C-alpha cells in the first residue's frame, strides 16, 4: 500500500473514533505535539496509556472482589484512570470513570461492579482501535524512513 493510502486509512480510522465519541479534542492536541523531532510521540503515549490502564483495571478487579471493599483505594485508582484517559483524549473511558467515581463515593458495591464493567468495555473497544492505529503508524514511519534511503 502506498504511503498516501496508509495515511488515508489512518485518517479515516481516527475520524471515525472522533465521531463515535471514543476520542475527544485532547487527542488532537497529542497529534499536534508529534513532529519531526518527536515522530513516535502519539504511539508512545498510547502505549503508556494502555499499559497503565490495564494495570489499574486488574487492581480494581481485585479490590472489588474483596468481601469488604476498600473504597478509598478504589477511588484512588479510578481517579488515576480518569486522569490518564483525560490526558490521552479517551472520552468514553473518561466518562465511564466519572460514573464509577460516583458509585465509589456512595460506597455502592453493585454500582461499582457495573461501572467497572462499563469502563472495561469502553477501554477494550478503544484498545482494539488503538492497536490498528499503532500498526498503521508503524507502517507509515517505516515507509517514511525507507523513502529517505
Amino acid at each position, binding site marked *: 500500500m502506498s504511503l498516501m493510502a496508509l495515511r488515508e486509512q489512518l485518517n479515516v480510522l481516527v475520524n471515525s473514533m472522533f465521531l463515535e465519541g471514543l476520542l475527544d479534542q485532547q487527542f488532537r492536541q*497529542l497529534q499536534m*505535539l508529534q513532529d519531526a523531532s518527536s515522530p513516535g510521540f502519539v504511539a508512545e503515549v498510547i502505549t503508556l496509556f494502555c499499559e497503565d490502564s490495564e494495570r489499574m483495571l486488574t487492581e480494581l478487579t481485585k479490590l472489588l472482589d474483596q468481601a469488604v471493599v476498600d473504597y478509598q483505594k478504589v477511588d484512588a485508582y479510578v481517579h488515576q484512570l480518569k486522569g490518564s484517559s483525560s490526558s490521552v483524549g479517551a472520552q468514553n473511558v473518561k466518562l465511564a470513570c466519572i460514573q464509577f467515581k460516583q458509585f465509589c463515593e456512595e460506597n455502592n458495591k453493585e454500582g461499582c461492579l457495573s461501572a467497572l464493567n462499563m469502563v472495561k468495555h469502553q477501554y477494550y473497544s478503544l484498545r482494539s482501535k488503538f492497536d490498528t492505529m499503532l500498526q498503521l503508524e508503524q507502517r507509515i514511519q517505516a515507509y517514511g524512513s525507507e523513502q529517505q534511503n
Partner: protein
Amino acid sequence: MAVDAEAQFHVLAVDDSLLDRKLIERLLKTSSFQVTTVDSGSKALEVLGLKEDQTSTPALSPEHNEIEVNLVITDYCMPGMTGYDLLKKIKESSSLKDIPVVIMSSENVPSRINRCLEEGAEEFFLKPVQLSDMRRLRPHILKGKHKEQQLHQEENSNTNHIIISSSNNNNMSNKRKAMDEEVLSERTRLRFSSSSLNVI
C-alpha cells in the same frame, strides 16, 4: 522581540503520573523550554537543592547550587507531598521563594485554587494542560527576572531602599518605581485571574 525571546528557561515539572510527565515534558519542549521532570515533591526539592526539613539551601550562594530552575509546574494531587505542600516549602525557603510556581489539577475546585493562589502560586492550570497554556509561563519567569535584576541594582548602588517603595528623585528610581507598580498590579491581576473564578 530582543533578548528574552532567545533565553532558554528551565522548568521543573512535578507529577506522579508517568503519562502526564511525558505530556508536560513534550508541551514544554515544544514551547522551547528546558525540562526536568520528577515524580514527587521530595524529588523536586532535591533538584532545587533543598532537603525536606531545611528552609534554606546549604550552599554559600545560589550560584553554587545544582541546576538553575526558572519555574516549577506541579500537579496538585500527589501521594505523600502534595503540590500544595511543595508550593509551601518553596515559598517558605529564603533561597527558593522567588521561583514562580504553577499548579495543575484535573479538578476545578475553587477553594483549592484559592488556597494555592494565596500561598503564592502564580497560576492554576486545569488538566489536561494545553499547548496554549504554555504561553502563560514565560511572563511569570520574566517578571521574576526583572525583580532579580532590580534587587541586584539595589545592592550594587548601595542604597538602603526597599524594592517596593522609593522616594528618590533620580531617573533610575522613578523608572524602577513605575516598573514596580506595573509588576505589582500585574501580579494582583494574575492572582485573581484563574479560569472562571470570581475572587475578591
